[in-house]
Each structure stands twice: as C-alpha cells, then as structure tokens.
C-alpha cells in the first residue's frame, strides 16, 4: 500500500491528459476524458431548485417541464455527451413514468444545456431530475 498526497494532478507532456491503467491491467484509459464534468440533482416542482450539484452556476426555469442548466466552468464545445433521468411525476413516485419517453435534451451550448421532462403525452414538472455531462472542459 502506497499513498501519494497531492492537491492537483497535471499531465507532464500535456497538462490536460493523464493515462490510467484499466481494470484489465493492460489497456489504458484517460483520466480527464473519463471524469464527469457537470452533474446535478434538481427539482422542477414549484420553484426550480438544485439539491446538489457540481460545476453548475444556476438553473433557469423555461416553463412547465423545461429547464436550462447553466454551467460554471464552460465546456470546450457543444458536442459533449451526457445522461438525463426524470421521474415524470410531481411527487416522489413515478406513477406517470412511461417506459422509454421520459425526457430529452434541448439545445446544447458550451455554457448551458436544456432538458425537458414529460410523461406519456404531456410536458410535466418532475420531482426528480438527475443529469450529468461528459466531454472536454474549455
């Protein structure tokens, strides 16, 4: 067991690139590329508000079921990837959740992304919204 203590990790050849040996003990992956750059758990009901987050500056309520997540430290481009889950219900249950159409992306920009929550046929404010972004920081 060895413990390395440091506050910051930086690549030697390229500051933003550090290789990490993967689980198979041979193939390497990239530390920076694998890190989640933005994540948030938020509530759309009544007053749109975050419960917890990382690298989020604020939320903008676009109306029923639609929210823009504003990023604190911007992404390098608008081509990032990510995930989004919502429970399509105004309470903790997911009684309105209907299989595979629970929400989707709106516009992606370097400084924000929009999301929409809906049940079978209607846009709806969701109690539980969990999302995150993978990609390149600016």
């Amino acid at each position: 067991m060895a413990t390395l203590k440091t506050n910051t990790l930086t690549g030697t050849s390229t500051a933003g690139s550090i290789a990490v040996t993967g689980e198979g003990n041979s193939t390497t992956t990239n530390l920076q590329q694998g890190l989640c750059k933005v994540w948030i758990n938020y509530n759309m009901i009544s007053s749109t508000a975050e419960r917890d987050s990382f690298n989020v500056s604020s939320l903008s309520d676009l109306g029923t079921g639609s929210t823009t997540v504003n990023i604190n430290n911007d992404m390098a481009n608008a081509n990032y990837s990510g995930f989004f889950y919502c429970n399509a219900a105004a309470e903790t249950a997911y009684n309105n959740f209907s299989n595979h159409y629970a929400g989707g992306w709106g516009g992606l920009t370097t400084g924000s992304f929009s999301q929409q929550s809906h049940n079978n046929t209607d846009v709806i404010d969701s109690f539980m919204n969990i999302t995150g972004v993978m990609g390149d920081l600016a």
Partner: protein
Amino acid sequence: MSTLRTNALEGVDAKNSITIVAGAGNVTTTNVQQGLCMAWVNFDGTAGSISNADNFNSSGLTDHGTGNYTASWTNALSSVNYSVSGMGGDNNVSSPQGMFSHNATPSTDSFKVICTNASASATDFKYVSILAHGDLA
C-alpha cells in the same frame, strides 16, 4: 498547494486500482478506475450520414435506420455487463422529446440503442448521447 505532474497513473499493489479520498468528510475513498466513464459519444442522429461529433473511446457509429444506432468502442469492455446511460433529444422545448432504450444484447465492443418519441415511434434526434461505465478489458 502541491501539484503532481505525470503522464500516467498505475496502482502499486494492483495496476488497475487506485483509491482516492472523495467523501465529503474527507475520509471515505472511492476507486479512480471504477469511477471513470470508459466511453462516451455525441452525434447528430438527423444527419444523412451519422458520425461522432465528439467522443472518447468510440471507433464509430452504425445507422440501422430511423432512430436505430450502434456505437462501437475502440478499447472493449471486459464483459457485457457494463452500465450504459444517455439521452436523445432535439431543440424543440414545446413538444415532448425522447430518450433511448437498449435495442439488442450488449456486446463488449459496441452497444445498440433505439431513440423514440412520445408516441413510442423510432425517431432521429439532433442530440444523441451514449455513455458506458464498466471494466475495461
């Protein structure tokens, strides 16, 4: 302030396992390798010829028809039991958009999804994201 400069990280006891203190209480540790996203991709599903807009560890995409895509991984996962997440959608906030579900048995080097709209019909979306978390081969 201390900064470690290195191009590569390996565990000492096991090359494939590095722990990092990450808990809010500054005590609990998590595992660096297990926490990393092993592959991610963003692409425009409405394009006539789909291709990665940006990606990590993706070797390409296959278009199987409306809303049906396979993302292939450059470095494969060690088993088919990895976790996949993501989302599809367009830039229309006034009508319901869709997300995806599995559309085939997962493979260690690829994953097939189907994007659907509010009527459960396969649909091409402008923004399609697919992420894979699991063990590298």
